[in-house]
């Protein structure tokens, strides 16, 4: 394995940011573009990455996002984290960052199963926050990169 080249890394992190921006824009398309072709396309393909159930989605101006609140939290926090964390100094070792990702995967999984098997009720906000924490933990993996 070789040491990562910073120029190459910056390019691929830009691709990652664009991919996340595409997902967020697609998810917000019913609110931003109403019944457009882009909204229709977004609804079709996003069914393969999320259950896309309206009652578990974020509502803005009476319209629902396509992704559920948890998925929207993951992708939007990952996106915001990626574009803002290079300006923030966070001194965590790689091991801690990776363990943080695992912990948040487990927390989200426990929340999903607890809710499905009626152990507790979670809300759109709580699901969004848990998803967002997971998204931030993913962006922490990239904090050392220079742009």
């Amino acid at each position, binding site marked *: 394995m070789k040491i*990562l080249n910073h120029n190459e890394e910056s390019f691929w992190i830009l691709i990652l940011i664009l991919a996340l921006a595409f997902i967020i824009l697609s998810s917000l398309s019913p609110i931003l573009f109403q019944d457009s072709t882009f909204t229709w396309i977004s609804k079709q393909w996003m069914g*393969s990455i999320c259950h896309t*159930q309206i009652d578990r989605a974020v509502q803005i101006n009476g319209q629902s996002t396509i992704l559920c609140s948890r998925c929207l939290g993951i992708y939007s926090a990952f996106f915001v984290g990626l574009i803002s964390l290079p300006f923030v100094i966070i001194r965590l070792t790689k091991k801690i960052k990776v363990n943080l990702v695992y912990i948040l995967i487990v927390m989200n999984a426990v929340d999903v199963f607890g809710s499905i098997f009626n152990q507790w009720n979670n809300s759109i906000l709580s699901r969004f926050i848990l998803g967002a924490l997971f998204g931030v933990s993913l962006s922490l993996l990239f904090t050392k990169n220079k742009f």
Partner: protein
Amino acid sequence: MENQKPSYLVPTVTNSVIVGAVVTVISLVGLYVAVSGEPTGSMFSASSVLPVISCLVAAIAGVLSVKAYAKMDGAEVTLGNGAVIGIVAGLLTALTTTLISQIWTSFIDPSLMENYANFIVKNMEMAFTNMGMAADQMDTTLGEMEKSFEDAKTMVGILKGFGWSALGFSVVNLISGLITAKVSAKGDE
């Protein structure tokens, strides 16, 4: 002389086919669990958990493929490799799930999709009634839903389904491949 880099195709194909098969099994179990129960009018229930898990499992194809490639002698794990492996893994996972699903629903249990369509339409009818939706709006929405199930059986519908899965799986595996490459690469700390 520079060492030849190993091909990423073998680990990517292997892992994508395995993940694709697992995703299909989970989805099929989810369908059987759904049709074996009674419609409740709830959009989210215990039977919803399996399709949700299958969405998440699909993102693992990129992770496993990049990890398997990183273990090969002479492999250079870069973010670029991670991205390419992720996209290829996504496409192959979508292809595998489409093929196995079609074989299952066409030859092994042809009644499954019809039963599932009936279940979904009845469940949504109850949900819309609970929500207080107007009768004409409900008829239009349920009619569109039934038509979409019919369209999905045609060759164009199957290809469309593959296309949407390929796009979704490619995007999430691009992300998971990049993350795994970042974590797998040395010299970062």
